[in-house]
C-alpha cells in the first residue's frame, strides 16, 4: 500500500514540474442550466462557459472537478479544489466560512412548483439541502423536507411526499415548461445577493484576478450576452 502511495506521489511529482499553476474549478454538475454533466460526460452549462472565459481572460489554466453539493464547501476548505462555481448564492452565512467574488449572476428569483394549483405553501415543502431556498422554507413556517439533489426534490413532489418544491426558478423551469407535470405556484421570491465564485478566504490573489475579469465582462456586455444565451431573453441581466 505504501508502495502505491509512493508511486502515485512520484507520478504526481514527475508530471508537475515547471508548469503554471492550475486553478481547479469545483462544481456540482447536477444543476442545469448553471452546471451539468453533458452526454459526453463533460462539465457543461452557463458556468462552464463563463468559467472558461474568465480563466482565458485572466491567463489561468483551469481544470474542472465535480463534487457533491453537501460537501462542496468543506472540500474547498481542505484544498481539493480552488473555487466553487456552482450556482452558489452569496449569503452572509456562507461568507463566515468562505469568500466570494463579486456576483456574476444577478440576484435570481426562486419559485414554488407543485403538481396542482392551490397547493399548500405552508405545508411540506421540498428543497435542496444547504441552499438559500432551504433556509427560506425553514423560516417561512412550512415543514422543510431536504434532499441532496434538485432531482430528488422534484421526485418528492411527484410521488406526493411533499406538497411543493422551492428552488431557483431557472433551475426549476425545465420541469415546469417542458410538458412536465409541475406548475408554478404562488409568487416568485427574490433571494440572495446574486451568484459569485466561492474561494478560500486566504486566496485573496485569485479573488482579485476573478473580480477584475468579471468587472471587465460586465462592462463590455459579454457577461449579459452569456446569460441571455443560457437563460433566455427574459433572464435578469446586469
Amino acid at each position: 500500500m505504501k508502495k502505491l502511495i509512493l508511486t502515485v506521489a512520484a507520478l504526481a511529482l514527475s508530471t508537475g514540474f515547471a508548469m503554471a499553476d492550475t486553478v481547479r474549478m469545483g462544481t456540482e454538475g447536477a444543476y442545469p442550466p448553471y452546471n451539468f454533466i453533458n452526454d459526453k460526460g463533460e462539465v457543461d452549462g452557463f458556468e462552464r462557459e463563463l468559467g472558461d472565459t474568465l480563466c482565458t481572460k485572466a491567463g489561468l489554466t483551469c481544470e474542472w472537478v465535480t463534487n457533491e453539493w453537501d460537501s462542496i464547501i468543506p472540500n474547498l476548505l481542505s484544498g481539493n479544489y480552488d473555487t466553487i462555481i456552482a450556482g452558489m448564492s452569496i449569503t452572509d452565512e456562507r461568507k463566515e466560512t468562505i469568500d466570494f467574488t463579486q456576483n456574476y449572476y444577478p440576484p435570481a428569483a426562486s419559485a414554488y412548483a407543485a403538481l396542482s394549483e392551490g397547493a399548500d405553501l405552508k405545508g411540506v415543502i421540498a428543497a435542496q439541502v444547504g441552499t438559500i431556498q432551504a433556509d427560506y422554507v425553514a423560516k417561512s413556517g412550512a415543514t422543510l423536507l431536504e434532499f441532496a439533489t434538485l432531482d430528488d426534490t422534484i421526485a418528492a413532489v411527484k410521488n406526493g411526499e411533499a406538497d411543493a418544491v422551492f428552488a431557483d426558478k431557472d433551475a426549476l423551469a425545465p420541469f415546469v415548461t417542458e410538458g412536465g407535470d409541475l406548475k408554478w405556484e404562488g409568487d416568485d421570491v427574490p433571494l440572495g445577493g446574486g451568484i459569485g465564485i466561492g474561494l478560500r478566504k486566504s486566496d485573496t490573489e485569485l479573488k482579485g484576478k476573478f473580480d477584475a475579469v468579471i468587472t471587465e465582462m460586465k462592462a463590455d456586455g459579454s457577461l449579459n450576452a452569456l446569460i441571455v444565451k443560457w437563460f433566455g431573453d427574459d433572464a435578469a441581466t446586469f
Partner: protein
Amino acid sequence: MFASCADPKTLEGLAWLMCYLTSGKHMLFYGSFLVVLALMLIVAPVALAFGFGGALAARSPFAPLRWFGKGYTAMVRGVPDIIFFLFVPVAMDQGLEWLRHLWTCPPTGEPVWSNGEFNVCAAAKIPLSTTPQIWHEVYGFALAVIAFAVVFGAFAANVLYGAMNAVPRAQLETAEAYGMSPAQVRRRILIPQMWTYALPGLSNLWLILIKATPLLFLLGVEDIVYWARELGSTKSAIYDYPHPDWRVWYFLALLVYYLGMTRISELLLGRLSARLSRGQATMAGEAMRKAGA
C-alpha cells in the same frame, strides 16, 4: 459513438436507444463497473494481508505486538465503518500533504490548519494541482482502497485469529513431538490447516465487501451508484437525450449486477470450501470421507 448519433434529437425508438446507451456518459458508467471490480480485487488480498498481520500480531508472545494486534481489531470493529470511511482518507490525505509541506515548503510561519482551512503551499499538494485530473482520481481511489483494507483487514484479522485457535491442539502437538520449532509448526501445520475454519468467515467478508463498494461514492470516487443516479435523473431539453426520471431502471440494473456478483461468488466459494474440507477433522471433512468410502 456512431455517425448516425450526431443529431440525437431526430432519432426515435431503437436507433435513439442505441445512441443513448453508447453516449460518452454511458461509457463512463460502464467504465465505473471496472473501477468497482478493481476495488474488490485489490482490496481483497490487501485486506487479507492486513488481517494476517493482525492475527499473527494478536497471537504473538511479544506483549506490545499483541496489544497492537488486539487493539487494531477492537478499534476498527468498535467504530462504525462509515466513520472510518470518512476519516481515513481525509486524515491520510491531509497527513501526507502536511508531511510534504514540512519537507518542501519554505517556512512561512503560518499554521497549516487555520480558520477551518487546510493550506499547504502549492508544491506540497498531493497530487499537484497541475497534474491531470486522472491522477487526482487515481489518488482518491488509492485512498479508498486503503480505507477499505484497514476496515476489512480488522474483520479478517479476527476471523483468522479465531481460525488459528480452532486448529485442533492435537495436530500442533504431533508436530511438536516431531521436533518442529514453533515457527515451523506455525508455517507447516497451523497456517495450512486454519483455512478450512477461516473460510466461512472470510466468505462472509467478501460478500459484505461486494455490497459495501457503493461506499466509494461517499468517498467522492465516481462509481456505479454515482453514474446510475446521474444518468437516471430527469434530463431536460438542454441535454442531447432528454428523458423523464429513469433512476428506477438504472438501479434495477445495479440490483441485477450485485445479485449476479454475489451468486458467482457463492458458487466459487462453495467449491473452495469443498476443496479445503477434504480430509479435515471437521464435520464437513467427515461427511466427504463417508460419501467417498
